[in-house]
């Protein structure tokens, strides 16, 4: 058996492009094999000859034949990905990793907490929820961005906010007077959530410190740490647990995660340089 990481990278066509913010774009990539995916899983995308990066699926798991990725340009690979346009080809392999616990969340309340680009993998969650709204009880979506201009999926969030069956809050770290919403870190919204802690599942994605604060607030709210899920980020090269880079304690973030129950990962998040 040849380890999966070492299988040929399929080249796929980019079929859609949308600029979200100054440094972030959403690409739609054709997926004829339509293997299906779970919200929270990711692909390894390779712009030809530039390298490879782990990029979450940000689109609708229900949409066949196409996969959306939302990419923030922070370095050479993500810059090259961001410069792709419909008709271009990109190397892609995946989906990889353990996604969000959609099953566990079914039938209860759901709290989604996203910071920055962390909204990308959670957008799949919200979309799946909307597609099967009856399977969840109360659903709260808390979104934080550094500034209004950095807020992703603005049109879509506007639509979410228009729905009565979603409790959507958006906050920014700083903004000028034209911003009508709250200016605060996203975790401040947590204590105000109107959910039933015992029957809630929380899904959190954002910078590591933000996730720790969020998890602490969620616990305070009464959601137990094994029902709080975080999506971790580590240096990742193979995506199938054979290159060693993404290890964090006993976990390979690529295959045991990236989504992990906070109860399991928290002890390691608490230790310096793990």
């Amino acid at each position, binding site marked *: 058996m040849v380890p999966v990481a070492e299988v*040929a990278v399929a080249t796929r066509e980019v079929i859609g492009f949308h600029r979200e913010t100054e440094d972030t774009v959403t690409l739609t990539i054709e997926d004829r094999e339509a293997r299906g995916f779970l919200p929270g899983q990711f692909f390894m995308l390779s712009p030809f000859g530039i390298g490879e990066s782990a990029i979450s699926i940000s689109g609708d798991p229900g949409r066949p034949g196409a996969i959306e990725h939302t990419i923030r340009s922070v370095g050479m690979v993500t810059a090259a990905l961001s410069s792709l346009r419909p008709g271009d080809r990109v190397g892609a392999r995946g989906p990889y990793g353990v996604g969000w616990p959609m099953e566990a969340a079914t039938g209860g309340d759901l709290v989604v907490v996203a910071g920055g680009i962390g909204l990308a993998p959670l957008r799949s969650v919200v979309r799946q929820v909307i597609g099967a709204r009856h399977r969840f009880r109360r659903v709260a979506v808390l979104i934080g961005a550094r500034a209004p201009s950095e807020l992703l999926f603005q049109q879509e969030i506007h639509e979410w906010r228009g729905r009565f069956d979603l409790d959507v809050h958006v906050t920014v770290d700083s903004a000028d007077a034209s911003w009508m919403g709250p200016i605060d870190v996203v975790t401040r919204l947590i204590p105000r959530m109107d959910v039933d802690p015992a029957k809630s599942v929380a899904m959190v994605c954002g910078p590591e410190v933000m996730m720790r604060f969020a998890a602490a607030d969620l616990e305070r709210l009464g959601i137990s740490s094994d029902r709080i899920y975080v999506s971790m980020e*580590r240096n990742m090269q193979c995506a199938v647990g054979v290159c060693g880079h993404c290890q964090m*304690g006993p976990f390979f973030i690529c295959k045991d995660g990236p989504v992990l129950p906070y109860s399991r990962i928290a002890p390691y998040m608490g230790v310096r340089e793990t």
Partner: protein
Amino acid sequence: MVIPRSLSTRVLEVEAIGRLIAALQEDGRTVIAPTLRDGAITLDVIDSFADLPVGLTAEMAPGRYQLVPDPEGRLFGATVGPASAKRWQRPPEVVVWSGRKDGGMVARVPDRSESQLAYVGLRGCDLAARRVLDRAVGARPSDAFIVAVECTRPGSTCFCVSMGTGPGVSEGADVVITEIVEPAHVLVTRALTPRGATLLARLGGAPPKGAEEDAAWAQVAAAARAMSGGIDPDAAAAALRMPSADGWDDVAARCLACGNCTMVCPTCFCTTTVDHTTPDGLEATRVRLWDSCFSLGFTELHGKPVRASIGSRYRQWMSHKLSWWWDQFGSSGCVGCGRCIVWCPVGIDIRQEAAAAVERVGVHAK
């Protein structure tokens, strides 16, 4: 030690190794065996019997390796050298794929690079390491032909007994040799697989006399008894499951973070991939290279390493080997070969560091 009845046992004269090598070569295999190379007895491709380091052995200590003559003229006098089978099992540099911009990206990783190989002289720890490494990287065992050698004179850095991987061999090889010099210098040889038995039949030899077989058993057993110290795998696994970030300063002051331990370890599997392109940008290649969790850039995230201090890198390595490996792959990541101890330029000894970690946890518990 329970060893299953082997398919056949023969006593071979020492020179029979020449025929064994030739027979493996006739079968189209490249033979890898211990040979003298640049000052050490190490695994490498050999052509014939003449390439074996007959009459030479090595003394090993933390950070120290010295060739010494073996007056008894053994073929397999030296235990493990710097190279392990990992070099062929998971080579240091592999083209993962290559392709043209307008075409696809073509996989290049050979299905199994080892199938045409034969190893002669792997030890119990080496065999265990092959299983552990295959398991870790999700590879099926290769069909490389393996002639193992049981250790009768382990070095001071060996601790296979504590890890349960040697010095006797009961699985993972086609043929097992015990080289004895008393009552006579012969190779007590048994086959563990049908193809091993076929090979042995080609070599001739005689059924063992009781004395020879007893000597072989006794010497391996004595070697096991004589091997002191080592690592208490359970205590280490427990102590390192949730390691504190403190307590590593001492080893950090000594550790060079040079990565030698991970490079020589037969089970360490960390790699890094790099892409290359032709100047016109039309062709690209992705190469996978051995890397090490001791490299500062290994954990780079958002431009900064997650594990910046040397202490945290040592902690990662040892915790992974001795503890988290159990969670991940159901065994220890260390097979007790001692390579990392010998080939650490400053002689850091995983046995001592593990004991220190266990001790620290013990102290905390009190």
